[in-house]
């Protein structure tokens, strides 16, 4: 058995999203099982089924470090500054 990852896309501008995974003996049956396991109630109008061995898995080097909060600037410093100086004199 191979493991496959199933992605479904709803109508409109929604992106593909991961529906789940399944085991199947080959690609042809993977498509059949994907339909019955994740799409039998018309959950999507497009389907991708990916052999998990074809998925590139990122490791620590590829993943951003968790403590870089300057990447999460929500603008509060600017907002505070403007509130303390309504005339924008600085």
């Amino acid at each position, binding site marked *: 058995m191979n493991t496959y990852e199933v992605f479904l896309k709803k109508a409109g501008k929604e992106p593909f999203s991961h529906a789940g995974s*399944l085991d199947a003996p*080959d690609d*042809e*049956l993977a498509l*059949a099982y994907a339909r019955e396991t994740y799409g039998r109630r018309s959950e999507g109008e497009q389907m991708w089924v990916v052999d998990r061995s074809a998925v590139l898995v990122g490791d620590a080097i590829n993943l951003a470090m968790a403590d870089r909060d300057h990447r999460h600037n929500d603008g509060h410093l600017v907002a505070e500054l403007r509130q303390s100086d309504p005339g924008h004199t600085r």
Partner: protein
Amino acid sequence: MSPDETAKELVLAFADDELCVGQNHSWWIAVGPFLEEDLAFSSIAQDELGHARALYSLVSNDVDRVAYGRPHSEYRSAHLAELLCHDWTKALARHVLHDLAEEIRWTALLNSSWPELKAVATRALAEEQFHIHHGVSLARRLLSSPDGYMRLAPVLSELAPLGREYFAGSDVGLVASGVLNASLADQERTWMERVEEVFDEFELSIDWGATRPAQGRAGVRSEDFLALHDEMVAVLRIDPLATW
């Protein structure tokens, strides 16, 4: 029989085949060989019961009564449809043979002069593409391995001749009146060729037999029918007002 009565008999026999196969498939719910197959097979069971209901509703206003309440001798199901398949190899072989036959039977109704029947056929045929994709893919996959071949090939060869009964019964006047787009004999020939073509590379030796079995169509129930029917009506016996 008038052409109208013959057409009703044909629909009833088709519905009985679907009811029996749907009920039989549902035996595998939760005990399928693996989770994904369990889900797929259960879903196919539900589709077949849906086909049965759609066909019964063309010939009766009381679907429950006609599906569950007739004396056994009034059922018209083919014996292959009634066969209890508590062995997965058998269940898979019957699934493939049944659905290959269904595809041909629905196709012969696709341009039927009976509009409601034509509508049911159009809808069912769309589901049939999936059933066949599923059954044939799995059967071919198993036949490709030595162990799978040893188990599945003899069962397919053994059950195939029974499938000829799907094409038994009267079609007198039905091609002329346009209810059927192909005679039962033509459908049967197409089915046998299709079965041979699907499994061509695996060199199954199928002895189709000299005559077409027709006992089920004539009202004689197989040994397995009693147990199947008992299970089918178990809920109804507990609660006669239950609906499906």
